[in-house]
């Protein structure tokens, strides 16, 4: 517990000061994960740029989930409308973060997920991990994405065609 907290002081980049304050507390406040609507490529660029002052980092692994135009009975998927059990989801994201920091040698970790409508071709999930070495970055990236898919209560309504039909999405 002590180790995890003292390592945490080094983790995060943009929230470094906040983390320093938090070392006195028993628990950490979850970080903001949800974003209304699609995740912008510009936002990804800004996240990358903000890590250039962290000169211990040697490898970044980024995963982006993009909405596919899958064919359904009523036509092609035009987008997904995401909802979540937000309080439980934030807790689940927090647990995934803590587990990943324990399992892998990570310098930074950021997770963002969309809520509301994300049109086909746009990005709904952005997982960004940074490490001194590539192996930890690769492994953490996969681990986090699989954990999100399996454990975070997010629900997706696939909007089909132009007639207002929909199909509920299910992760495999």
């Amino acid at each position: 517990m002590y180790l995890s907290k003292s390592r945490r002081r080094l983790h995060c980049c943009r929230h470094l000061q906040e983390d320093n304050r938090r070392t006195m507390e028993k628990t950490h406040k979850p970080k903001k994960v949800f974003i209304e609507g699609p995740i912008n490529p510009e936002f990804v660029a800004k996240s990358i740029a903000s890590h250039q002052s962290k000169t211990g980092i040697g490898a970044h692994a980024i995963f982006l989930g993009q909405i596919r135009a899958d064919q359904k009975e009523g036509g092609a998927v035009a987008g997904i409308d995401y909802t979540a059990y937000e309080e439980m989801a934030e807790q689940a994201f927090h647990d995934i973060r803590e587990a990943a920091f324990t399992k892998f040698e990570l310098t930074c970790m950021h997770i963002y997920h969309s809520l509301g409508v994300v049109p086909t071709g746009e990005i709904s999930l952005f997982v960004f991990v940074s490490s001194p070495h590539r192996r930890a970055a690769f492994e953490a990236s996969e681990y986090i994405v699989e954990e999100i898919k399996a454990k975070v209560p997010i629900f997706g309504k696939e909007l089909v065609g132009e007639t207002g039909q929909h199909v509920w999405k299910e992760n495999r």
Partner: protein
Amino acid sequence: MSFQVKYFGMLAEIAGLSDEVWNAGGELTVGQFRAQVLDKYPAMRDKKFKIAVNRKISEDFVPIEIPAEVALLPPFAGG
């Protein structure tokens, strides 16, 4: 006893609402609550869902202790 029930995704669609107060006669396990829900919303019978009690997915044998927030969670679709 009574507690808060939350519905998500296709289950909210079936229930026609996303929140309601559940008034149970006496104490309930998660499994007994599940049976009551399926009685009230028969269209949920052929849907897969898990039940979370106070934001933790719970097995059928677990007793619901008030105050409780109980949620019906259809398959996850994050990512």
